């Protein structure tokens, strides 16, 4: 199958309250690919993830982003989601009083309505998510609990992956989904991510650590530093970074 371009970022500059965070970022992600974006704290990783999802806390000053051939900035947050862009939050938000099931069903039906597909009813919905919940090792009472309320760190991250699996996005952006997970939870989350991998979709893993990348092996690894991608490579780059840290990449970039 021919590869298609899912995401194309060109010369992206963004700031928050006059402080520049992204300084001319370029990135191309094609179908079937898994990209890892690594980098030290404050390098702009989460900002990039939030901008992709449409968070309005950041001001994009120049640059373009195309998502499946469309101008991403012309789409609202909800339109992006319905077009198949999914952000797994670094800090999933607690919403007391809204059931997990409500939110999941609302999300699924919004996407279906946008694609002229029929709405799912309660029966279909239960059938549809049963296997996904098993894969994420979540019990059924979980659906009647409020979104993320009182969840452990690991439960929150598994819930993000459950939402992702239910919505089957074309592009999944996972913002530090591995942080705060123990080894077992990390395996569950990784198997969820791997189950979504196929030739039609693309995944961007934003992470500090190499350990997730041993379980979800990326095709490309990029190092983000001071708002630019300063080095790209394959999984070996991630291993080197794990052993040697980021300083050598920064020095290399400074000498260019």
């Amino acid at each position, binding site marked *: 199958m021919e590869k298609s371009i899912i995401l194309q970022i060109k010369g992206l500059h963004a700031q928050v309250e006059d402080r520049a965070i992204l300084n001319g970022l370029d990135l191309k992600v094609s179908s079937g690919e898994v990209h890892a974006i690594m980098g030290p704290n404050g390098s702009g990783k989460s900002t990039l993830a939030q901008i992709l999802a449409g968070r309005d806390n950041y001001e994009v000053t120049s640059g373009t982003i195309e998502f499946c051939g469309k101008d991403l900035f012309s789409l609202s947050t909800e339109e992006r989601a319905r077009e198949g862009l999914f952000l797994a939050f670094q800090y999933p938000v607690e919403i007391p*009083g809204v059931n997990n099931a409500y939110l999941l069903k609302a999300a699924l039906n919004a996407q279906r309505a946008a694609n002229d597909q029929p709405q799912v009813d309660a029966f279909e919905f239960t059938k549809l998510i049963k296997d996904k919940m098993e894969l994420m090792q979540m019990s059924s009472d979980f659906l009647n609990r409020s979104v993320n309320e009182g969840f452990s760190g690991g439960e929150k991250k598994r819930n993000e992956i459950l939402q992702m699996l239910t919505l089957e996005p074309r592009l999944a952006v996972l913002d530090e989904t591995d942080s705060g997970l123990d080894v077992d939870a990390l395996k569950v989350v990784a198997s969820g991510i791997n189950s979504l991998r196929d030739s039609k979709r693309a995944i961007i893993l934003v992470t500090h650590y190499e350990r997730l990348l041993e379980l979800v092996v990326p095709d490309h690894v990029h190092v983000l530093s001071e708002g630019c991608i300063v080095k790209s490579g394959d999984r070996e780059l991630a291993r080197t970074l794990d052993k040697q840290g980021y300083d050598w990449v920064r020095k290399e970039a400074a000498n260019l």
Partner: protein
Amino acid sequence: MTPETLHSTFEASLNRLETSDPSRTLRSEAMALFNKFGYPTRKHENWRYTDLKPIVKAELDPTPKSLTTNQIKQSNRLLDTSLLDDGAARLVLVDGELLPNAQTLDGIQGLTILGHEETWQRISELQSVELFQRHPLAALNTAFASSGILIKLSENTNIEQPLHLIFTSTQAANKAIQPRILIDIGAGSKLTIVQHFVGEDSVANWTNLVTQITQSKESHLTIYRFQEYGNEQFHTELLDAKIAQDAKLKLGYVDLGGKLVRNDVQVDLAEPGAACEIFGVFLATQGQHVDNHTRIDHTAPQTTSREAFRGIIGERGRGVFNGKVVVHRGAQGTDAQQSSDNLLLSERGEIDTKPELEIYTDDVKCAHGATVGELDAEQLFYIRSRGVDEDTAKGLLTFAFANDVLRRIEVPEVRERVASCVAGQLPDYENWGGLL
């Protein structure tokens, strides 16, 4: 209904009672007190934000009358929206009058509903004069109350099935309805009451309810009170409760309808280990005014109170919350928490919230807080990032704000019905209601 109208009607209604009627003396005393104090005005600290003028100006008939078939017909129609199924134990008051033959209390051992004579006997015993001085509307209720009801639960009786108390308001005439409810819970007993106020859309009656509760030691009483009148009704009420050792009172107030609503709650945690939990949700929009006024007295040591009210204020709505907690001398070990959270959906709405804490002893744990705000931006973004449009996300979050408190209703069918009625009154319900 001006004080003059009340004064002149009072003599006539008193004359209709038998000379031996046990209520005569107390009614006269109460009327004299009301004449002295008059309606509370905004000059009274407790009435600063609520103006009773619309009630004073309204032409209302305060005289209790026997029910007509038309009233009963209308009431029966309203009962179709009952919160519990037909088989539930229930009492129905139509425009303040007890509907005959509507009581289905057969087979409930230990629970008795007593009528006029016993009720007035009990009112006298409770020495309510002090209450009238603090609450002139309670004095007015006493002067005009028609069928008083005394709900009595004997000792060590656990009633699983909730008792349904329905107040229907019909289009008979614009009436001033003055129901009086007394509840006595025997030691070690347990009861849940579901109170439901329902009325025709265009009815402009005024209900002025007084409920007096006495709980003996180690008893548990829960009252879920749900008000869904049409938007022309006036409603004022006072609930006064005295809680004995290790007894617990739980109250849930939900107000959706009404034009002018004022709920007064006062709870005396009178003996060690007494506890109360009060929660509430109210909606005020389109000229509605809803005022919740609570006062909790920790008079004994090791007493506990929990209070959480949530207001949702829309266009031209007005909400008031005043919650006072008094920790008296000698009430050491008191544990009191209170919160008032409010959502302002429109710039043309108003909320006045005032938590008050008075502490006259050491070694207590008290916390209170009030918030007035808009929907949470993080939550909104999170829901939208899942593909849900902004209006739907706002609707869901507004509902969640109320539902977070409604979860405290422990009777599933009541919780679900109340939650769906609340949802139905929120903006853009048609867009997101199907999700629930």
